[in-house]
């Protein structure tokens, strides 16, 4: 079991999650973050830290979200670890409003 970053991180990339990760399992490219399932300890701290509810436990994914398991697992190891909060993407606030989450 692991945790995965899903759809909502796209166009947001708030990165609040990385500050509560006890094991530095978040990696990122310019668009979004990914969780390395080999490193994640399933503590769930990141779930409530994400302002747009992008992070879910593998167990809680809907059928069309299942693809994110593979995307996180394959992308994370090749990308740099993100440990410190970064500025959200310029589109983040608009995207958050669109999702009805502010």
């Amino acid at each position: 079991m692991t945790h995965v970053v899903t759809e909502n991180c796209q166009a947001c990339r708030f990165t609040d999650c990385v500050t509560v990760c006890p094991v530095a399992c978040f990696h990122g490219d310019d668009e979004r973050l990914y969780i390395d399932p080999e490193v994640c300890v399933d503590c769930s701290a990141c779930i409530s830290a994400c302002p747009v509810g992008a992070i879910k436990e593998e167990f809680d994914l809907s059928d069309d979200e299942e693809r994110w398991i593979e995307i996180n697992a394959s992308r994370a190891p090749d990308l740099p670890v993100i440990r410190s909060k970064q500025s959200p993407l310029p589109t983040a606030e608009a995207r958050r409003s669109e999702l009805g989450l502010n």
Partner: protein
Amino acid sequence: MTAPGTRKVAVVGSGPSGFYAAEALLEAGAEVDVIERLPTPFGLVRFGVAPDHPKLKSVCQNFTQIAGHERFAFFGNVALGRDVTIDELRGFYDAVVIASGASADRKLGVPGEHLPGSWSATEFVSWYNGHPDFRNRTFDFSCEAAVILGHGNVAIDVCRILSKSVDELRRTDICAHALEALAESRIRDVHLVGRRGPAQAKWTAKELREIGMLAEADVVLDESDLALGATCEAELADPRGVTPAQSFKILRTFQGRPRERSKAVHLHFNLSPRVLEGAGRVERVLFDRCRLSGGPFSQVADPTGETVSLKAGAVFRSVGYKGVATDGVPFDGRSGTIPHERGRVMDGDAPADGLYVAGWIKRGPSGVIGVNRACSLETVETMLSDFADRPPSQAPGRDALRSALAARAVRPVDFTSWMRIDEAEVEAGAALGKPREKFTSVDKMLAAAFAGSGPVPQSCCA
């Protein structure tokens, strides 16, 4: 040797918040000494995290990596107030971070709460995890029913430990003395009781799900408890609170399950404990049935007038931890925390110079391990901005601490010595097919720490 002018910081407490503060300070170029009362580091990761959650304990590898930094030193077996005072530390270092956690437990405040057979979850958890202060507690598992008061993750941990068979626990790092006592347990029914409803429970979805996957215990609940009022529905529908909604979905899957196992976990909601009763020891708990009132996220439990009685020979109170005061440091006794502004300790309206706070003693006892990282980052950020206005450090740092300890014949356990304890525990565990068998007395920890390096000092708190 560190460069002249390097900031020197003492962190009191070696749990997650202490280590995350140390990590951030090391990254900022400071020299960091972590001071710990016990010879062993890692706080609640060692003494709180349940033995059947080994994955979570792997954060110790991250802490060990932090401890490997050239500007880091560990001073185990050094108690603030006993071996060194806060005023001395403030003189030795540029700044002191109190990260001592919340070691006491909150009281229920109901009659009978201290009857024999009623314990705090803190005591029980510390005991099965081998905390030296709790090694000699005794628990009686000869009854058939236990009540756990509280709906948080600690309550669920206690519930699992009571509901699992000894065979399920044998390969974990649960202490041998606990395994032995639990082997005699006759507990068949565990009641997990909360004052409010399923939408307000504090547990995480992950922990709740585990209750439904126990090999030897069915999960039982009253379906009427899952009928929610409009306010609770509104709470669950709030997209910012993903976890309660997820938990509620899991509770739904517990409905109407067949009874097929020898034990049962009974989930109860809307029951507020009124009194613990029994002749000389606890025999039952009386509850007021409650109904919720108030707006979303501020609902309170009001008694309906109906009384519910649960038979129980063992009661575990899991209604939260509470911080304890440190001599010479401001403290708010009501919240059990140190008053602060973004981690800077406040003495009334004025900042206490060079004094900072992080973790549960700063914000209260809630939030999983990782939440303490964000908390410690905030504290360190505040400290660094305070440092920016000051001349380079003239503080003597760890040399002064070492001299003071030597003058008092206190022998600190450094990180290498802790690793000898660790190695000895892992070796003792391997013989039993466990990840480790913990030492449960300070004297045994010290003997392992200093094995082959001269006489071991007597501890004064063994």
